[in-house]
């Protein structure tokens, strides 16, 4: 996660949460591509404003391009309607409706990802503090910090495991799909063992530092919502309601 220096113009993570939730809500409700495209452009602008790393994030999902392209085909084949663009025998491989629906799904995904990247511009400690000040119990909110800390570590471990598997002479390129899946299944056990192991060790360490102490918890750093935050929250929520109102009626 990006740790930004103490910037007095920093927005409270809670206003970011509201903003992201509003954008995601719209993305889920919109079915129409003509609403999604401006929403997507808006989301990109928001991310640029927050200087989030959305491009990197999208790049990480480039492996899923295959699934996206498949979406277009699946939508074309199984949903009837629209003009056929490509046909094989009686099967419509690509139709306008298919492209339309497939792209909608892709856009929805992208909107949610990009808006989520805005959350990454706050430190996990601030997000935890924000949620805690919203009265969510600390034992739950601190999980956010744990996830932020450990997910990248788990990713790296998975990568190492995958490498060591191949270094045992497994030439992936030469394997059939079935055998490939078999190999991947062997990664489950060590990953689960690793997660359970780490969870156990961490929970011991934090309990011994008072995680479940029966005291009123104080906070070293507190967050204050400022004028800019209230504006953002107000605008996000009211625009979302307005837009949804127009969308459905």
């Amino acid at each position, binding site marked *: 996660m990006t740790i930004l220096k103490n910037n007095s113009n920093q927005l409270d993570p809670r206003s970011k949460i509201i903003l992201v939730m509003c954008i995601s809500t719209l993305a889920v409700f919109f079915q129409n591509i003509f609403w999604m495209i401006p929403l997507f452009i808006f989301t990109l602008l928001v991310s640029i404003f927050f200087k989030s790393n959305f491009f990197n994030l999208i790049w990480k999902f480039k492996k899923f391009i295959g699934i996206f392209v498949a979406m277009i085909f699946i939508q074309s084949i199984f949903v009837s309607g629209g003009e056929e663009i490509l046909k094989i025998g009686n099967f419509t491989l690509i139709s306008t409706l298919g492209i339309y629906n497939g792209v909608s799904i892709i856009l929805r995904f992208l909107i949610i990802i990009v808006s989520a990247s805005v959350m990454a511009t706050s430190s996990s400690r601030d997000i935890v503090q924000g949620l805690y000040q919203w009265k969510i119990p600390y034992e739950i909110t601190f999980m956010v910090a744990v996830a932020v800390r450990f997910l990248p570590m788990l990713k790296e471990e998975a990568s*190492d495991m995958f490498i*060591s598997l*191949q*270094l045992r002479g*497994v*030439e992936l390129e*030469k394997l059939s799909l079935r055998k490939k899946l*078999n190999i991947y299944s062997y990664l489950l*056990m060590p990953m689960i063992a690793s997660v359970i192991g780490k969870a156990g060790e961490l929970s011991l360490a934090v309990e011994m530092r008072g995680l479940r102490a029966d005291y009123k918890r104080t906070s070293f750093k507190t967050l204050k919502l400022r004028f800019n935050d209230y504006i953002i929250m107000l605008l996000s929520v009211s625009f979302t309601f307005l837009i949804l109102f127009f969308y459905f009626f």
Partner: protein
Amino acid sequence: MNISLKDVSYNYEKNNLIPTIKNLNIDISNKGFTALIGSNGSGKTTIGKLMAGILKPTKGNIFYNDENIKNMSLGSIGKNVGYIFQDPERQIFAPTVKEELTFVLKIKGFSEEEIENKAEKMLLKFRLSHLKDNFPFNLSRGEKQRLALAAVLINSPKFLILDEPTTALDIRCKEELKDILKNLLNQNIGMLVISHDYKFIDNFADRVIEISGGEIKNDHFKK
């Protein structure tokens, strides 16, 4: 077999002006025990990973005999060079010790008989026979390490790279590891051991290469 690094440079961050490894040239033969020492951050782990093809050099080339490993898949690299991670849990995958040794052979299509033979031989050699039906994650650290070694060696590589193998091992396990490595050396399997445990390396290494700041500071053959 010869592993050579020719003018190899490596940079962890693409924009970093100071590379982690600068213009390294090393030739290691697969005979004997080469120790790679150096302080934390000197680049020794990076060199080990470059040699095993885990990292690709930003400049320069790496050769096994005369073949550039640039275009070799990890699978085919693994047939020549085996790599043991510092944490043995990064290379244990199966629900039983025996299956750990057999599952890769099954994928590769060896016959039942061959698999059985190879597995039993390895279990014996690495003193794991009494544990063959155990759940690998319940083994002690020393036992896990032996399992990782057995699983890598069942593939018959001619060279091994070990990254800090003595971490968290007590004195008994270190002696056991020494015995096992000596055995392997006697079978003409060469090895590169990255370690800061000078005691372990001392009477053992044939060659000691010292790395500092990504460059070779010292390189001498003992004996």
